[in-house]
């Protein structure tokens, strides 16, 4: 985890106060989010223990119910670490569900053939957006906004109505359970954890990961140092597109249908998860593990609201917004402290 924190440790060793050192540590936001998760889990335990909140399966369900969000958020983490933003995530997920459902149900293609096609389309979409962003110097915000419109539109072009999937391979895959002794995980949850592990390795132990951090930290310096910033930037959006498509596939498994309105606004959930996970939106600082905790916190809000029963779903949005606000303010205070 400390692989990328070489620069702060040098300056921190000179600061005498332990408190100052703690506040300056880049890992603090992740720790705060993890702590928040534990606190919320504790509150849930004390309130709903009699309703079975303490069962391990409730915890594992967080991964089952939010696996697709985790995969999407991991992709967004790459983009945000590089200093960009990707608004096309939700549309890409929706498009993948439509694309998969249409090919499997209407065209009768086998699922094993459709999966690589969907992933390819996602990666290609991300690549094209990255290409335009880098080569024509248009803001990522606008280019990915165009991507948002385009993929949502393509969903509707495929079909205006939702397509439910009755294919046996899909349903058997969706219902497959991987037993862990104390509970089980779905295939989607396993895939999302694998993606997380790969992203962790790539970001913290490979040259590509270091380039992503360098470009997000200071693009001009990275360029002057001779880093291939164009290739890295395009790669980052390709990764995000690929992750979105994969998230779309997981979502298709989870919901077993394709719908042109699936995952509307999920890019914001993904961005919120990344921010709550302590990644700086200006880029260059953050951990993909934080994103995991961000997703878990968002998922826990949802399941607590489910257990509460009386609360309605809009409280999820309000709670997410309040948390987002709190974490942004925490980030803000930490970055100003670092500067002074």
């Amino acid at each position, binding site marked *: 985890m400390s692989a990328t924190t070489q620069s702060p440790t040098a300056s921190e060793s000179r600061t005498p106060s332990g408190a100052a050192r703690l506040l300056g540590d880049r890992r603090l936001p992740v720790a705060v989010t993890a702590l928040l998760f534990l606190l919320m889990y504790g509150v849930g335990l004390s309130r709903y223990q009699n309703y079975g909140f303490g069962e391990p399966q409730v915890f594992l369900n967080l991964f089952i119910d939010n696996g697709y969000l985790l995969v999407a958020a991991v992709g967004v983490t790459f983009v945000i670490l590089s*200093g*960009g*933003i990707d608004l096309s995530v939700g549309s890409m997920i929706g498009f993948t569900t439509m694309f998969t459902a249409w090919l499997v149900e209407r065209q009768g293609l086998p699922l094993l053939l459709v999966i690589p096609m969907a992933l390819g389309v996602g990666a290609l979409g991300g690549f094209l957006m990255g290409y*335009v962003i880098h*080569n*024509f*110097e*248009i*803001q*990522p*915000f*606008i*280019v990915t*906004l*165009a*991507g*948002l*419109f*385009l993929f*949502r*539109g*393509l969903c*509707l*072009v495929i079909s*205006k109505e939702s397509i439910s999937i009755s294919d046996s391979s899909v349903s058997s895959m969706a219902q497959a359970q991987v037993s862990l002794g104390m509970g089980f995980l779905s295939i989607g949850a396993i895939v999302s954890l694998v993606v997380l592990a790969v992203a962790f390795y790539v970001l913290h132990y490979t040259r590509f990961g270091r380039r992503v951090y360098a*470009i*997000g930290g200071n*693009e*001009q310096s990275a*360029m002057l140092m001779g880093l291939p*910033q164009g290739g890295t930037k395009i790669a980052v959006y390709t990764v995000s597109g690929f992750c979105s498509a994969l998230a779309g596939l997981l979502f298709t498994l989870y919901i077993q249908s394709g719908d*042109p309105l699936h995952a509307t606004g999920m890019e*914001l959930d993904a*961005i*919120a998860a990344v*921010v709550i996970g302590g990644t700086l*939106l*200006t*880029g260059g600082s953050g951990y993909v593990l934080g994103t995991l905790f961000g997703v878990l916190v968002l998922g826990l809000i949802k399941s607590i609201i489910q257990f509460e029963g009386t609360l*309605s*779903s*809009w*409280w*999820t*949005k*309000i709670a*997410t*917004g*309040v948390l*987002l*606000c709190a974490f*942004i*303010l925490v980030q*803000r205070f930490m970055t*100003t402290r670092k500067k002074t």
Partner: protein
Amino acid sequence: MTTSSTTSSRWRALTHHHLFWPVAVLVLLLLVNVPFTPDFFSIKMADGHLYGSLVSIVLFGSPLILVAVGMTLVIATGGIDLSVGAVVAITGALACSYISDQSDQGALAGVLLAMGLGLLAAVVCGLWNGFLVARMGIQPIIATLIIMVAGRGVAQLITDGQIITINSEPYKLIGGGYWLTLPFSIFVVAAVVAVTVVLTRRTALGLLVEAVGGNAEASRLVGIRSRRIKIMVYAFCALCAGIAGLMISSNTSAADGNNAGLWIELDAILAVVIGGTSLLGGRFSVGGTVVGALVIQTLTTTIYTIGVPTQTNLVFKAAVVIVVCLLQSPKFRAKVFGARFGAGSGAKGSGKPAAAPADPTAASEAAPKMEVS
């Protein structure tokens, strides 16, 4: 030889006017309709109201124009406001739920109070955004993301998750009524646009906004209260969104916390970009934005009239965004049209690259990291 050079210089002056391309696109789009609807430009009088495609474009485009005008000023300060859609929903929800609680829904005093309440809530949202951006120094895209996420929840909380329908004649006027044979909303939009233009172009306010957008720190050092300007601009943008929210809920006589104003922030940003305002801040054109919003609305109408399936609407919109942005990118023009044309059109595009080499911190605040040279 001299005459040809003067006509070419006049032509160049015309094509280099900042409104030329947006207006050209708008006219082109309008003309596309003629072969499909021969009486597209005709305006008929019926029931004492004017009817016609042009009138309905303006009528249905009114909320978007309002939101986009507010957005223009925010973008001019180098910011962006993603929360306008949620503000639209909150305003409509508050106003409608207040009216639905009245025993006499048609009472003018109650309706005015409801509108006041809605607009007050909108301004509070705007002040909160401005506070986060100007006082706390948070990137605008993130600061406004908070209300974008939470705001719809608040709107649903107000309406209790239901779609509140009301039956109030005076309230119906704002978004669906007619006055002096024209839709009333056209007058509202005209008033807001006029006030904005007068405030920004007849007073120093517009200059100050551009100065803040060009370089917030430098403008603060020369004595402009850049923070106060930013807060004002966000409040104004939210107020415009609030009026649009009243209009939308009035037109449908219903408040829908979930769907009112959905995606309007993106359409508004698109309108601003089509209108030629740089997303980097420091320069803006209210007129361009109005034209941009009309382009988007005309595009939607055109898609309906020429019989293209409506679901491709979004694909068309995406194509327009990409084309407009590519044309605005100096690098794209240089690559595609060659170095000579790229250099020649430098004057036209100067608004965009000129803002780029400003203070990198100010620029990166506007949008993440695009000021690479």
